[in-house]
């Protein structure tokens, strides 16, 4: 749909967060006008974003940084076959495009999958998005993929459907995707130049033939870009995932960013290559390294002016259930699903929950705006700091340091707070005692941060964090993250001004390698 792309164009270059909050404010115009920085009906354009685009993104935990604190998505693995080979994938395990290599997820029939989805959706009202992703390529298994969509759409039309694909057969399926009202398609595009592509894809299977080398990469990139153009023309939102592979496509991804943006992609998500010999992938075995946190952020920043970057992707497990990152899969195994005789879909509870979340979210946006407004002009400075936050969700500082398996990272500057990513860590606290070996790895994972916000923290890790130069902060326990971060940042700048402390840049940090093992 032409209109979508145009409206996005108006807002281009702004972080998605601002964009969404503006829309959230805009929605509030009819009821209250205080604190609203959004100028309704001003030069920002009559709608800021086409309402249908906002409808699509606002509850989508993959697209909206706001939403991913409150809503959950679920992936079902119904499509194990694939038609290409990626050097970062060992297909004995999951598709590395959407999940971490080395973790096997269960294969489901479309019937099992739809039953599971309905059961989960009834138990977890946050579950608003169903994705079909790896292992395998959903569009290399079109019958299973679309059968699953059909079954779910029949019973639970409120669940949004999305799928991820390598794009090879995408052009053949755009009409069906449109017909099923699938409104989010993720295409993994790692290159737009076959010279680069030949080092990522050893072969593809296309039109009953195996192609290798440059020819394979050329066909793949042509099909991917054609598919993207067709999605845009059909009004289906398209997100692009790219895997950053240092020395192979790291510099090239800026070009990829331009190419996909010009074809109407809505978001571009750059993920780090996760690679270790034990994954058995070509890259893992030949010692290809993944990027460091700083390298990844530098690339994301380089692309940011070009398009909305998505920074909260966690390469979560393909069949993860529950709030993003919080793995509740064990509650819904195939066995347990098969035991359930009939699933009653609880639409009422879901609706009530979603209304509650909507009001929480507006409250949170308001709190942040208020804190920002207080930041007076003379506080403007060049200082930028990163803050790591231990959170269970709802946009609050509500996780114990020792229980955190990951931290959300916010970049603070006088422009406000910006969500810049996640860092996965090992559980520091395994059953009550801080294990000594884990703390250094936690420190390494957030070593580029000036502070870490937690709901609670023990004395010992507190001292060690301080020794590493990271300020452990528990006084914002259970407060909204961004409001707290702005308060902290203001105080920080004031202390630098009064020479109480000296502002220093921090070092680089590690991106956690290897498969995440659920603590449960």
């Amino acid at each position, binding site marked *: 749909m032409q209109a979508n792309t145009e409206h996005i164009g108006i807002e281009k270059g702004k972080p998605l967060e601002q964009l969404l909050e503006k829309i959230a404010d805009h929605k509030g115009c009819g009821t209250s006008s205080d604190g609203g920085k959004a100028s309704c009906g001003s030069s920002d354009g009559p709608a800021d974003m086409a309402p249908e685009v906002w409808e699509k993104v606002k509850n989508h935990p993959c697209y909206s940084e706001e939403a991913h604190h409150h809503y959950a998505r679920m992936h079902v693995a119904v499509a*194990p*076959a694939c038609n290409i080979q990626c050097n970062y994938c060992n297909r004995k395990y999951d598709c590395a495009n959407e999940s971490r290599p080395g973790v096997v997820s269960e294969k489901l029939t479309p019937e099992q999958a739809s039953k599971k989805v309905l059961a989960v959706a009834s138990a977890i009202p946050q579950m608003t998005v169903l994705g079909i992703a790896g292992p*395998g390529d959903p569009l*290399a298994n079109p019958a299973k993929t679309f059968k699953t969509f059909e079954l779910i759409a029949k019973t639970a039309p409120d669940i949004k459907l999305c799928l991820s694909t390598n794009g090879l057969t995408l052009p053949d399926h755009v009409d069906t995707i449109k017909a099923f009202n699938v409104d989010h398609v993720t295409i993994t595009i790692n290159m737009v130049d076959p010279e680069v592509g030949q080092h990522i894809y050893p072969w593809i299977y296309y039109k*009953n*033939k195996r192609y290798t080398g440059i020819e394979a990469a050329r066909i793949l990139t042509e099909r991917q870009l054609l598919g993207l153009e067709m999605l845009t023309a059909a009004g289906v939102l398209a997100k692009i995932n790219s895997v950053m592979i240092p020395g192979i496509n790291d510099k090239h991804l800026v070009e990829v960013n331009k190419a996909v943006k010009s074809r109407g992609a809505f978001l571009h998500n750059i993920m780090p290559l996760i690679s270790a010999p034990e994954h058995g992938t070509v890259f893992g075995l030949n010692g290809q390294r993944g990027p460091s946190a700083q390298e990844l952020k530098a690339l994301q920043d380089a692309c940011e002016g070009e398009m909305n970057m998505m920074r909260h992707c966690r390469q979560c497990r393909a069949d993860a259930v529950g709030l993003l990152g919080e793995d509740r899969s064990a509650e819904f195994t195939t066995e347990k699903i098969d035991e359930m005789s009939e699933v009653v879909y609880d639409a009422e509870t879901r609706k009530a929950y979603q209304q509650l979340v909507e009001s929480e979210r507006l409250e949170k946006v308001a709190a942040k705006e208020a804190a920002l407004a207080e930041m007076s002009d003379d506080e403007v400075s060049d200082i930028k700091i990163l803050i790591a936050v231990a959170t269970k969700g709802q946009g609050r500082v509500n996780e114990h340091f020792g229980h955190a398996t990951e931290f959300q990272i916010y970049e603070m500057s006088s422009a406000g707070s910006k969500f810049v990513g996640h860092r996965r860590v090992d559980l520091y606290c395994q059953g009550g005692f801080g294990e000594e070996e884990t703390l250094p790895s936690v420190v390494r994972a957030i070593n580029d941060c000036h502070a870490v916000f937690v709901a609670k923290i023990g004395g010992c890790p507190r001292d060690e964090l301080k020794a590493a130069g990271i300020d452990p902060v528990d006084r914002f326990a259970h407060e909204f993250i961004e409001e707290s971060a702005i308060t902290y940042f203001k105080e920080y700048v004031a202390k630098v001004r009064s020479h109480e402390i000296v502002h220093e840049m921090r070092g680089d940090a590690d991106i956690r390698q290897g498969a995440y093992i659920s603590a449960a």
Partner: protein
Amino acid sequence: MAYKIIASQCTGCSACEPECPNVAIREKNGVFIIDPKKCTECLGHFDEPQCVAVCPVDLTCVIDNAFPRYVAPA
């Protein structure tokens, strides 16, 4: 006259199953097997055996020497 799948290497990904022009491939205990009576080595259909072309694990779909090579009916 047929290809076979080395079970210990098959990932069970199912990619080969729908590609076989003779519907010779099916799932058995989590891995896939070829019915040698149906397999024609793709002769007359495609330039290369489809199961070989699509399989992610090299040397998993191989000629089964227990059978003579397939000869297309005259």
